[in-house]
């Protein structure tokens, strides 16, 4: 097959590309330019679009003897990922830009361009497995064998068409094995640190970044009784379940720690409460994406609401929303703390990813 190997300049995508070459595919390395103003040198473990990263990817492609190009998807990334991220926070929600990027950029803009140019598929260095069913030929997305590196959560937005055009050559390996293989292959990136957090917020200070984008909007922090217990610089920058960074002047009367229970951007108010009032049993999801066949009715599944969060048992109820779109309700067996609207709930059946939805609302019971 003719395959585009997306190469970030990191060790994972380097080994992924190498394995695609070794498997006999006709591989072209492509580095995505996603930043409007790329820095020359890497400054932190975050960010992945500096010229240095591009050069690292190019050197790996040289060693593999494959062509290498840089594709400029910065404008698409800005509109579909960065601006969406800002808009979601401005509405008091907590988005996951990595899912968005996989859905709209890597397996949409990049994939579409690759297909149009005559390629058959895109390979990335994600830790996840694609299993082709012997009976139907359908593609299933599964968790990686390396549980600590598993990235199936951020891929839970991919549908059958996208999975049919995707390769994840690292799904059966551990990170340790991948680094060792990179060293064996003589890749200079073998010891390059992993990237973390949000690539377009290079210093990792999401709240500071949001404040620069949305402006300071001072307001008050209320407790569950409606009493003012503190102040904030903009309710939009808070996330349900958050405890750090509240800077409450006095501890609660009962001395228990307090967490963000509600972010109300209309009133510019943050409401805090003790942990036991944050429990969520019922999740309403929108923007539902099924990796394969949609469940026809209530189904016992595992639910995960954060990239590295635990998977909890529950029941998923596929529904039609008022406007006729596919919606989803998930009822957890036990309450879960810190579920924020805007996050994605990804559903699992064993190791298989069934689908995902964006959390619209949560309910305690």
């Amino acid at each position, binding site marked *: 097959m003719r395959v585009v190997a997306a190469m970030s300049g990191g060790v994972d995508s380097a080994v992924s590309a190498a394995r695609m070459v070794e498997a006999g595919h006709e591989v*072209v390395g492509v*580095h995505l*330019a996603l930043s409007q103003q*790329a820095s020359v040198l890497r400054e932190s473990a975050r960010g992945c679009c500096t*010229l240095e990263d*591009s050069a690292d990817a*190019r050197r790996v492609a040289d060693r593999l003897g494959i*062509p290498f*190009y*840089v*594709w*400029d*998807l910065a404008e*698409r990334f800005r*509109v579909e990922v960065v601006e969406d991220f800002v808009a979601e926070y401005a509405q008091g929600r907590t988005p996951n830009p990595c899912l968005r990027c996989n859905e709209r950029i890597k397996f949409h*803009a990049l994939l*579409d*361009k690759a*297909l*149009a*140019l*005559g390629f058959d598929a895109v390979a990335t260095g994600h830790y996840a497995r694609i299993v082709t069913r012997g009976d139907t030929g359908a593609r299933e997305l599964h968790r990686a064998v390396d549980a600590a590196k598993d990235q199936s959560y951020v891929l839970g937005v991919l549908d059958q068409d996208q999975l049919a055009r995707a390769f994840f050559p690292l799904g059966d390996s551990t990170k340790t094995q991948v680094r060792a293989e990179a060293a064996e292959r003589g890749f200079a990136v073998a010891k390059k640190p992993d990237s973390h957090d949000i690539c377009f917020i290079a210093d990792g200070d999401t709240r500071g970044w949001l404040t620069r984008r949305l402006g300071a909007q001072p307001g008050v922090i209320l407790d569950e009784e409606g009493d003012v217990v503190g102040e904030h610089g903009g309710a939009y920058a808070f996330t349900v379940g958050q405890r750090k960074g509240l800077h409450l002047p006095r501890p609660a009367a009962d001395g228990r720690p307090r967490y963000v229970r509600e972010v109300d951007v209309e009133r510019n108010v943050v409401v805090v409460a003790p942990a036991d009032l944050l429990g969520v049993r019922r999740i309403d999801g929108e923007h539902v994406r099924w990796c394969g066949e949609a469940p026809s009715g209530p189904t016992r599944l595992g639910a995960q609401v954060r990239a590295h969060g635990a998977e909890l048992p529950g029941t998923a109820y596929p529904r039609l929303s008022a406007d006729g779109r596919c919606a989803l309700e998930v009822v957890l067996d036990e309450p879960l703390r810190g579920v924020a609207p805007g996050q994605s709930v990804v559903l699992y059946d064993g190791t298989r990813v069934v689908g995902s939805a964006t959390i619209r609302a949560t309910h305690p019971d």
Partner: protein
Amino acid sequence: MPVYLDHAATTPVFPHVAAAMAEQATRVGNASSLHTAGRAARRIVEESRERLAAAIGARPSEVVFTSGGTESDNLAISGVLRARRDADPRRTRLLVSAIEHHAVLDCVEALEAREGVQVTWLPCDAEGVVHPEVLARELAADPESVALVSVMWANNEVGTVQDVAALAAMAHEHGIPMHTDAVQAVGHLPVDVAASGVDLLTLGGHKVGGPVGTGALVVKRDVAVVPLVYGGGQERQIRSGTLDTVGILGLSLAVEYAVAQRERETARLVGLRDALLKGALDLDLGIRVGGRWTPGDALGRLAGNAHLIVPGCEGDSLLYLLDAAGIECSTGSACQAGVPQPSHVLLAMGLTEREARGALRATLGHTSTAADVEAFLAALPAAVDRARRAAGATLGSG
């Protein structure tokens, strides 16, 4: 073998030039040393200077050897600006065409940002021509403030040739010196420094069959230039650094040969270029020719330059698809981080950003053949078709 159609980026070194350089490379001798070996090296340098000067209608004492076109452009603009401003503090303005190479453009912008220099960008018409009347008007507005005029001899993207002599005459009417970046012109157009009247002229080695990393700035004897690089005082104390005997030899031999072959070679290239452009238009793909083009003409447009605007495409997709088909060409514009940017030249010519993204430049040179042109034209339709489909994906309309 891939078909190489990017001679404006760099062109193969002539075999006899490479051989002469290889022979010289094994000889010891610093051209500034006083002993026999040093004198031998110096003799090579001075013979090369005379050879180069003779080929372009300059005097040997006007030739300052540099590391290439970029350095020559920077030296000319920064050096003359600083010298003229030192002599007369009012002279802080540069008149520069909007279609210059980045070696001029970015140097001028840096001076603007860091030294408070004023810049007047001279516009061009839809064919990329900078009209002398435009320069005359800008000069007349405030001649005492102008330090230097700089307009390139021939454009590297669309191949448009300027009336450099007329522009220089305009500048001289106000006693203002004129620089021209002739990197694309030397060896390809009849370049005679004395006849053109220019005061400073940039040339480079690797666009004419000489080595990369070589070039010269021709500086008239009465033009003061503040150096960029200080040291041993070589090259009229304008450009210090041990003379690159091997590179200077290669540069001079390449320019001499290219100039000697020019008339015959450009006649041949014009035939190939016209076949390429006509062939591309005949494909009925909505392709337009960028710049000024009259079939058979080797003086208004560079003989080896074929520039195409392919609507609905991104040049980098075309570039990839042609590369995959064994055809090496360019979008013509500068890259940032490996990504071609919409060309400032095409924007200055009045194209929209979207049109400018569909630029494709094929440039012919001394190794090009009719078979290369045929291969390009054979590969182009499929590439355009696919690139148009891909454009939907990247631009978000698909």
